[in-house]
C-alpha cells in the first residue's frame, strides 16, 4: 500500500537528485568551460595553436571519459574524502559526478566553439582584438546557443549518472528505483521513481531548448 512515508521518500529522492545533478553540472561547467576553451584555442586550427597543451588535455579527457562511472566513483573515494570530509552521502556523490562530467562538458564546449565561423574570428583579429577578448567577446557569444543545448544534454546525462549514487549512500530517485524495483521487486515504487525521473529530464530539456531558441538571434 502507498503510505505517506513513501510520498515523503519520493519527495526527498527528488530533492537529492536535483541537488546532485544541479550542483555537479555547475561544478562540471566550472572545470569544463576552461578545459573546452583551452582545447578549442590550442587546436591546430585554433587561434593559439599549441600541440603540447592540446595533446595533454586531449588525453586527460579521453582517459576520464573511458572509465565507467561506477569504477570512477570508487576510484576517487580518497579525493572525495579530502574535499567533502567523508566518502558517502549525497554531497559526496557530487565529487565523482563532477569529475566524470567535466571532460564530457569540456568536449561539448570545444565542439561548440569550433562551430563559430572562422571569418568572424578573423574580423575580430583584424580589429586588433586580443586572444582573451576574442574568447570572451566572440567565441562564447557566438556559440551561446550551441553551449546552452550542451547544458541541456549535460543535465540529462549527469542525472543518469546520479542513479548510481546509491552505491555510496547518495540517495536520489535512481537509488530508490534500484532498491525497491531491482532488489525487492516492488515495481509500483520503482515505476513512480522512474516516472519522476522522466519528468525531471523533460523539464530540463524543455527549459534548455526554450532558452537556447530565445537567445538565438540568427533566425527571426
Amino acid at each position, binding site marked *: 500500500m502507498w503510505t505517506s512515508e513513501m510520498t515523503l521518500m519520493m519527495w526527498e529522492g527528488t530533492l537529492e537528485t536535483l541537488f546532485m545533478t544541479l550542483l555537479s553540472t555547475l561544478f562540471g561547467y566550472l572545470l569544463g568551460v576552461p578545459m573546452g576553451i583551452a582545447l578549442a584555442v590550442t587546436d591546430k586550427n585554433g587561434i593559439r595553436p599549441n600541440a603540447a597543451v592540446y595533446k595533454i588535455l586531449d588525453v586527460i579527457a579521453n582517459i576520464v571519459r573511458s572509465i565507467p562511472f561506477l569504477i570512477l566513483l570508487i576510484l576517487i573515494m580518497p579525493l572525495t574524502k579530502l574535499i567533502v570530509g567523508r566518502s558517502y552521502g549525497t554531497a559526496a556523490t557530487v565529487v565523482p559526478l563532477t569529475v566524470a562530467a567535466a571532460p564530457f562538458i569540456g568536449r561539448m564546449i570545444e565542439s561548440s566553439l569550433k562551430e563559430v*565561423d572562422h*571569418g*568572424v574570428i*578573423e*574580423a*575580430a*583579429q*583584424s*580589429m*586588433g*582584438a*586580443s586572444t582573451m*577578448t576574442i574568447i570572451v*567577446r*566572440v567565441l562564447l*557569444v*557566438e556559440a*551561446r*546557443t550551441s553551449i546552452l543545448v550542451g547544458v541541456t544534454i549535460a543535465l540529462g546525462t549527469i542525472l543518469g549518472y546520479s542513479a548510481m549514487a546509491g552505491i555510496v549512500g547518495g540517495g536520489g530517485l535512481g537509488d530508490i528505483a534500484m532498491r525497491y524495483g531491482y532488489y525487492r521487486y516492488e515495481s509500483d515504487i520503482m515505476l513512480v521513481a522512474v516516472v519522476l525521473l522522466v519528468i525531471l529530464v523533460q523539464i530540463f530539456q524543455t527549459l534548455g531548448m526554450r532558452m537556447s531558441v530565445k*537567445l*538565438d*538571434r*540568427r*533566425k*527571426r
Partner: protein
Amino acid sequence: MAGIIEVHHLSKTFVTRDADVEALQDISLSIQTGDIYGIIGMSGAGKSTLVRCLNFLERPTSGTVEIEGKDLSTLSEKELRARRAEIAMIFQHFNLLMQKNVIDNICFPLLYGGVGKKDGGKRGTMSKKDARKRAAELLEIVGMSEKAKAYPSQLSGGQKQRVAIARALAANPKILLCDEATSALDPQTTQSILQLLKQINRDYGITIVIITHEMSVVREICSHVAIISEGRLAEQGRVTDIFEHPRTKEAKELIVKGEGEGSRTLENRQRDLMKGKCCIRIVFSVNSSFEPVIANMVLRFGQPINILRADTKNVEGIARGEMILSLPDDVRIQEDMKAYLVERGLAVEEVDGYVD
C-alpha cells in the same frame, strides 16, 4: 616617394604534409596615401593571402611589409594589435557577429579592438555611451540608421556589407582592406557599395586596397591596379595605362574577360535611353536576312531609327539575329514601321526593358 603601404620582395609558403605551396613569390608593391588600389587575379592566384599579409593576419615567409614606414615584423604582439586598429578590413561574407545587433557590431572595435592600445592603454578608452554615439554617426554615413536594432540575419547582403563598412570605419582607420567585398553581391548592390567606398576614400582620405577577381570593379573605382597571377606580380600601374596598353598576357586576358561584365553597365545606360521611347525587338529568321530590311525601311520612311542593340543568338542550334530599335516619336510612323517589318516576315514585339 615612400607610400603608406610598402611591400618588398614578399613571399609566402604554406607548409603542408604533402608539399610546400608557394602562395606568393617576390611581390613588391608601393601604395600611396589616398589611392584606391586594386589587386586583381583569378581564384587561387594568392591575392587573399597577399591582403592578409598587409595586416599580418598571415606572416610572410620572407620579405617585409611597411605601414607608414614601420616594418610590421619588428612590432610586438601588442603593438601589432594597435597597428591593426588603423588597418580596417571588410570581407566577402561580411563576418558580422550574428548574435549581436547592428549597433553592437559597430561598437565592437571601439570597445574591444586595438584602439588606444598604442599609447599603452589597456583597452579602448571609449565609454559605452560614446561608442554608441559614434556608431550612430557611422550608421548615418552608410545610410543604415533605421536598422540600428536589427540583427544581421534580418539584413540583405548589401545591408550587411554597409554595416561591415561602418564597423571598419569606427576606429578611424587610415587604410581599408577589402577582400572580395562585392563578390557575394548582385550587380546593382555591387555598384552602390563601390560608390560608398569611393565616397569614403574622397571624404576621409582613407587609402583603400581592393582585392577582386572582377575587372569591372577595378575599372569602376580603382586608381591603380596590380595583377597577380600564380603567386607572382604580373603587372602594376595606373588603371588607365594598363587598360589602354596592357603589356603582359595576364593583363590582356583579364581585360578581355572583363568585357562581358563591362557590357552590363553599358546595358544600364541603354535602358535609360529606352525610357519614354517606343522600342521594339525584332528577330530575323534564316529567310529574312537576304534583304537589307532596316536600311530599306529608313529609306522608305525617310526617318532615322536608333539601333540600341544587335546580336546573334543560338536558338536550338540555329543562329537568329536579334535587334532592338528605338523608333521615331510619331505614333503613326511607328505603326507603319511595325506593319512594314511584319510584312517582311520578321517577329516584332514592343519592349520596355531587355529580356535576356
